[in-house]
């Protein structure tokens, strides 16, 4: 399949996925027990008022018409009004989005910077003690409930040692908003106290979220390395008398990292999952924290808005990862 063909196929799939997500969230908002119009009108509203709101919301129309209206609203960025904050859901999500991105990037950096070396070492020393230790770390990472790890870290580093703050994103005033990523904004504007505070707030949540991811990265790099080390060209390089570090770094690693790119990217979904839990534990004002608070307030417009936005982001990231992968892999690129 050529490069252009793959992109075309993926874009068609993308349309269907977004359509599917909208269908699912639409169906869900109709599964919810209770009458949204009555909920919005409040407890003391008269029947006429409820009927009026129902008409305003379009709930008196047929289901297909309601669905078309819903999709039209989504396309216009109208995700409805949050019952809890009384603000448009999209505004809320955009407000909290940068915090989640900042946390995810920090966690991913931690996982990759530590996970790739661990995976390499583990593959080279397969079945030796260090491999068993690394594999145990990676299985533990995958098996750790992120919310629980976060609590342990808070207890240890905030409660006992008092080294890092246990909640929030920053003490004092946030830096001038440019990207919404506090660390980056503080760096750009040279706001050093803010940078210091933002970084110290970032450490524990990033460790929590990153540790789960570390297991995934290590495992993936290890198995990709093992596969590549079996290849003929590695044996040829060995026979040709190349030094072991050169074989590993120049020949094996570069090829092992290509499949790892997709895996690490695909794990973005797990990152979203972990972010919801991590943000809840650390009161990190991101989208995950927002959705959990919306859940306890039964704020369905907010929950469904989050679902649409998170799913779309997930699909887009996966698409970008796949394209990067195809670009990196000479076998596919060559055919295109």
């Amino acid at each position, binding site marked *: 399949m050529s490069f252009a063909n793959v992109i075309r196929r993926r874009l068609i799939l993308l349309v269907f996925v977004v359509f599917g997500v909208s269908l699912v969230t639409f169906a869900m908002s109709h599964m919810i027990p209770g009458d949204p119009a009555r909920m919005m009108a409040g407890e003391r509203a008269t029947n006429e008022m409820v009927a009026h709101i129902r008409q305003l919301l379009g709930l008196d129309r047929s289901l297909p018409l309601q669905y078309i209206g819903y999709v039209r609203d989504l396309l216009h960025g109208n995700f409805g009004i949050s019952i809890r904050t009384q603000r448009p859901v999209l505004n809320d999500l955009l407000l909290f989005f940068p915090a989640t991105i900042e946390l995810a990037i920090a966690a991913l950096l931690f996982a990759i910077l530590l996970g790739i070396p661990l995976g390499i070492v583990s593959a080279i020393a397969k079945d030796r003690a260090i491999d068993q230790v690394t594999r145990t770390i990676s299985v*533990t990472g995958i098996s750790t409930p992120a919310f629980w790890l976060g609590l342990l870290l808070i207890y240890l580093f905030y409660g006992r040692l008092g080294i890092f703050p246990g909640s929030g994103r920053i003490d004092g005033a946030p830096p001038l908003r440019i990207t919404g990523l506090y660390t980056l904004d503080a760096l750009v504007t040279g706001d050093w106290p803010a940078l210091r505070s933002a970084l110290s707030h970032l450490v524990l949540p990033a460790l929590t979220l990153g540790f789960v991811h570390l297991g995934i990265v290590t495992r993936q790099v290890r198995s990709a390395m093992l596969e590549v080390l079996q290849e003929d060209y590695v044996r040829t390089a060995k026979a040709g008398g190349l030094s072991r570090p050169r074989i590993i770094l120049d020949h094996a690693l570069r090829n092992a990292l290509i499949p790892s790119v997709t895996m690490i990217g695909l794990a973005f979904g797990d990152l979203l999952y972990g972010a919801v839990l991590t943000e809840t534990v650390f009161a990190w004002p991101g989208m995950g924290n927002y959705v959990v608070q919306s859940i306890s307030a039964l704020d369905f417009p907010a929950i469904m808005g989050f679902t649409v936005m998170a799913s779309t982001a997930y699909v887009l990231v996966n698409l970008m990862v796949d394209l990067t992968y195809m670009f990196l892999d000479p076998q596919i690129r060559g055919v295109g």
Partner: protein
Amino acid sequence: MTAIDKSPLAASQVDLVGISEARAGAIDWRYVWYQLRQSPLALLGLAIIAIVLVVMAGAPLIAPYDPNRLDLLHRLAPPSLEHWFGTDEVGRDLLSRVLYGARVSVTVGFAVVGISMGVGTLVGAFSGLAGGRTDTVIMRIMDVLLSFPSFVMAIALAAALGPDLINAMLAIAIVRIPFYVRLTRGQALSLRERPYVKAAVTFGARPLTIVRLHIIPNALAPIIVQSTLDIGSAILTASALSFIGLGAQQPTAEWGAMVSNGRDFLLDQWWYPTFPGFAILVTAVGFNLFGDGLRDIFDPRLRGK
């Protein structure tokens, strides 16, 4: 064994459709056990699973107290000889609650995998066997479903169904179905071309019979690996939903809900959220280690390495 089976004529007929091959495809458990014994980590996983199952079955015999017995005089007591894991804010014994919690949390894990595997395997087997347009339509739908972030979908689904453990379980199970559909369908596609399956079709065997006798037994190995790994992640996901308030509700002794309740007491009563969370970790490690071990055994690409 009948006399006919032993005759050379019957044997050659049998070989024509490859019945021996069909049988060889099924899992040789003695070989699996032999391989497992070579892998200390997989054995550790198996041991953990065995202990967890014993705890589930014998909770009333092992637990020192009734998990729901209130003891207001000993609220938030630290770990001691009387209460190994300490007590919670109404004086319930945390060790007993963690032990009983295995029944809830691990059962949820098995149930989730049972539902998603059962439905997914059947749909996948029929889709692969049917081929053609039916298969294309089913697989395109699965492609779309697989592109959803499963946890986000589980949150939305559980929220829409209402906060309840059964609903959380269903939500997790539903979003896992496409994985099994794709897995079994891939196996069915290749098995469909085997002589013994073609022979069965020729002789007019019904699809259900073919799926039951030929497709599922021969596709079993990857399904078992996937489902073992999934039990661990289902337990984690269910406890996560409980933690954010979408799963088990008070006073159910469920691990995620216990961590959630204990969160408020973290700084002064560290034991409260720590032990239930540790139980989740150990159980998930058990299933993941064992699943990894099984995958190494069943994956022919890894076998030689």
